[in-house]
């Protein structure tokens, strides 16, 4: 038996908003630790890793590990029925479950909505993401600022080069209409910690990425005030949003563009 109750359905809604444009379907792996989703976009260029820790739920019970295979567009339809302040309870049987139950309760407890969502058998590859990678540059900034940078620059070009040097971090784009360069600097003295920009650098780093995927990643901005972007030459970029203090995270990985010389 799997049962989990989250006081705020909004969190789950936002998690889904953060992944549903990028991936179509995925297995929500439930274990004692919590609920975990790992999925790739169809071209296998980017990967998203979501963890909602058991401790972040009001109630969490998972007797046996199980995978809930879900078509994200369908789950999104169901979650759209949850009100702003609703609590959500997810239930699934251990064996042979072909549906999962989603129940929304209004804050006053006067309105209860239940859905049985059909599950699918999803055959997905689980990629091993190395935990011990050290990145040569890490940018921590307000997630709204990150969203704005990507949304502004994506109108100019379809790739962005992120360069971190002692002068700060710059985002460079080039497109048919011309070129753009946006530069941000560390600002660790802002009053609110969430407004601070922290750029740490082991060595100057420069790498190019496809804008399309970064745009997908910015969909997670409502989940977190800050975002952490980690990069190194020739390894995937990581864009990480933490949910609450200990509730969980949404982490995106993006394969970099390969420089012409390495192509063949």
């Amino acid at each position, binding site marked *: 038996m799997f049962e989990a109750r989250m006081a705020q359905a909004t969190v789950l809604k936002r998690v889904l908003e953060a992944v549903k444009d990028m991936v179509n379907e995925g*297995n929500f*792996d439930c*274990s004692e630790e919590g609920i975990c989703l790992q999925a*790739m976009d*169809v*071209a*296998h*260029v*980017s*990967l998203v890793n979501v963890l909602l820790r058991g401790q972040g739920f009001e109630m969490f019970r998972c007797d*046996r*590990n*199980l*995978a*809930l*295979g879900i078509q994200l567009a369908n789950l999104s339809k169901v979650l759209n029925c949850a009100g702003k302040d609703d609590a959500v309870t997810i239930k*699934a049987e*251990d*064996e*042979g*479950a*072909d549906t999962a139950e989603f129940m929304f309760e209004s804050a006053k407890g006067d309105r209860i909505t239940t859905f049985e969502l059909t*599950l*699918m*058998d*999803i*055959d*997905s*590859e*689980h*990629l*091993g*993401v*190395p935990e011990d990678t050290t990145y040569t540059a890490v940018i921590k900034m307000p997630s709204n600022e990150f969203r704005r940078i990507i949304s502004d620059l994506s109108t100019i070009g379809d790739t962005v080069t992120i360069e971190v040097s002692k002068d700060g971090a710059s985002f460079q784009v080039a497109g048919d209409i011309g070129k753009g360069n946006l530069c941000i600097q560390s600002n660790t003295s802002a009053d609110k910690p969430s407004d601070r920009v922290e750029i740490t650098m082991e060595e100057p780093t420069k790498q*190019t990425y*496809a804008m399309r995927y970064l745009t997908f990643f910015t969909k997670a901005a409502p989940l977190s005030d800050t975002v952490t972007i980690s990069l190194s030459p020739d*390894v*995937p970029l990581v864009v990480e949003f933490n949910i609450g203090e200990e509730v969980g995270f949404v982490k995106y*990985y*993006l*394969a*970099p*563009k*390969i*420089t*012409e010389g390495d*192509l*063949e």
Partner: protein
Amino acid sequence: MGIKGLTKLLGDHAPGAIKDVELKSLFGRKVAIDASMSIYQFLVAVRQAGGDSLTNDAGDVTSHLSGLFHRTVRLMEMGIKPVYVFDGAPPEMKSGELQKRTEAKAAAKAAAAKAVEEGNAELAEKYTRRVNSVTPAMTADCKTLLRAMGVPVVEAPCEAEAQCAAMAKAGLVYAMASEDMDSLTFGTPILIRQMWAGARAGADKKGVKPMTFNLEAALSGLDMTMDQFVDVCILCGCDYTDSIKGIGPTKALALVRKYGDLSAVINALKGEGKYSIPDPFPVEEVRELFLSPKVADPAGLTLKWGEVDEAGLKALLVEQSQFKEETVTSGIARIRKSMKNSTQGRLDSFFKPVPGAAASSGGTKRKGGPGGKAASTAGKGKAAAPKKAKK
């Protein structure tokens, strides 16, 4: 035309080896394509309303060029890097099969003429399509076209499928695309079928998807070695020998399982005297054709996707074949754009699949058995097993 009944045999005994995939999931992959078969497919499939082939002003057929051009552009737009492999001289042992095909064509031609006479348009079209044959001039035009598109062309010394398979085995390409199931017998780790159907405009909407066949998963599903698999294929009926009457794929599988290999099977059958074994039935020679076919050493091949030769393409397609200039120009623009995108890496070239980590998904399989997936995750089923035992 490949191995009789192999698709069904794999579907029954090694379902994990067959997967429907999105064409897009092949993003960034190099794929070796059996060119001769593709050209033939285009000749058959690319038609005007009324069933006539596309032709230029001189009346020469241009269906193959149209098909090849448009679908190659589409593949490249999907980020796939195609390499075309052309047939060389067929092996001598194939002469019987080729003779049959020539006869079948002649019969179709006669049937078509008869249908026209009888005024049965539907039948006439059906038979006319079968008459098509790929002429050396068509093949030459296709090579010119591909080279002008900047796509690498490989000339096989013998069978194109064997060459493609050798390239895939050597890791020079990710997979090969052909309709011929004997590609697996030649040892390609991954075979893509229906790639052209998947690359058609609107294929997404119709839900037409390419299929991949994974050799390792097929072997583990059938629980046999590659040598035994080749033996089963030969028994099923391949292009190089006559098949044994009364023995189909299921029987072939059972026999090889029972006797271990083909020579033993043949001896046992001869002893039984129930089946008439074609004479000669050169077991060793046919095996040799599959296991070490005549191919150009993949190590000596360099595949390079180059610049588009705009003038060359227009000379062939617009001047010689009377394609609309705008079509060709837009195609060229699409190729150039996709070349720019080809610098995007795949994430799975950085992170590798973890067989054990996927075990948790073994918990609630709703249909079918344990996740028989790609061969690389063959351990997945085993890893999931203890969990099941706990229940």
